[in-house]
């Protein structure tokens, strides 16, 4: 195969674009797709401060690298989840990447700072591990973005992630979730602005970006994700993609351009009126936010060694 742009020998083919690329043209293609997403969805401008949530995986490290290469003011946020060797290795790779490139990394440790880890949370609450993990990460991402006075929080959710979430939301016809599924969620009281600049990039492309730029990422799958619904949705979508290249991208982009508007109102209706959490000050519909409720339940039943507990309330009125 030859590169579509320069006709040099290709290193990767992308069936949905009916194209193959050499190394340099592929990297150019990735950056163009990310720039296109940032512009199309008005994610942020060149002066804004961006906090990228990084896990040590391909998507978040590649996103951090791309945004820095594109000249944005971007720092990384790593949350240690306490998932044994997997988390240890992810942390090592994230720190090594940040050091090698001279990027600023903010770190939070769930076990050290909040007194619990994801395996314990999953077993003590009978929640699926990904549910406790997602809830904890969303809370801490938001807190770190507000505490650090960042203009926007960026996550490495890619086209495949978002298409799988969309399939799940459609299978269950979840109007509130469909209303909130969009590449940009604006800042509101107590919530940082959130963006997903990789929404036009497949996860195979993100892995290729890392391989071609020698970005050493965590290749192993999270041991707690095995068998989750999200992976099942991806399997279905990839079977469809194999038969109809471009199906995943069409499914997702058509939702953004033609479907999302019908659910936008449902996102606001289901959210309801917000109060401040009695413990941490985060916005919540009850008296205690879901994160504090989860943490209290886990640590009240868990005799784990707590080296440091951080419970500083966050401000819900954002300083601009």
């Amino acid at each position: 195969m030859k590169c579509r742009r320069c006709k040099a020998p290709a290193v990767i083919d992308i069936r949905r674009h009916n194209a193959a690329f050499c190394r340099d043209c592929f990297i150019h293609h990735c950056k163009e797709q990310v720039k296109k997403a940032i512009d199309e969805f008005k994610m942020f401008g060149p002066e804004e401060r961006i906090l990228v949530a990084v896990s040590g995986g391909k998507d978040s490290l590649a996103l951090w690298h791309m945004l820095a290469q594109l000249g944005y003011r971007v720092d990384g946020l790593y949350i240690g989840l306490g998932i044994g060797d997997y988390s240890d290795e992810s942390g090592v790779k994230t720190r090594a990447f940040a050091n090698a490139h001279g990027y600023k990394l903010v770190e939070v440790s769930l076990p050290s700072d909040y007194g619990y880890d994801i395996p314990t949370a999953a077993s003590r609450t009978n929640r699926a591990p990904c549910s406790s993990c997602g809830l904890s990460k969303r809370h801490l991402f938001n807190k770190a973005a507000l505490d650090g006075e960042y203009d926007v929080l960026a996550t490495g959710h890619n086209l495949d992630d978002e298409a799988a979430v969309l399939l799940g939301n459609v299978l269950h016809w979840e109007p509130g979730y469909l209303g909130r599924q969009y590449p940009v969620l604006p800042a509101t009281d107590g919530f940082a602005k959130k963006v997903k600049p990789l929404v036009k990039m497949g996860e195979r492309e993100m892995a290729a970006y890392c391989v071609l730029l020698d970005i050493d990422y965590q290749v192993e799958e999270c041991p707690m994700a095995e068998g989750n619904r999200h992976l099942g949705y991806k399997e279905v979508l990839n079977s469809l993609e194999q038969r109809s290249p471009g199906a995943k991208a069409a499914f997702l982009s058509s939702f953004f351009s033609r479907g999302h508007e019908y659910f936008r109102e449902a996102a606001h209706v289901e959210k309801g009126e917000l109060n401040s959490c009695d413990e941490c000050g985060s916005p919540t519909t009850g008296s205690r936010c879901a994160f504090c409720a989860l943490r209290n339940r886990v640590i009240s039943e868990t005799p784990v060694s707590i080296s440091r507990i951080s419970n500083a309330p966050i401000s819900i009125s954002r300083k601009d």
Partner: protein
Amino acid sequence: MKIILRNPRREIEIQGPMVADSLLRRLEINPETVLIICNGTLVPRDTRFTDDDEIELRPVISGGAA
């Protein structure tokens, strides 16, 4: 040729020569779900492998639902 698979990591031997696309079909691997890395270099699906090649089929699917 030596084939390296992940999650869990394992190695298998397959008789070459063979085109990458045929290898994926033989192993029943969806091409959307892997990168093909031959002797440390990323390659497209029309690449022809020989018996001396070491090929990693690196999965690209990650699972968190957060």
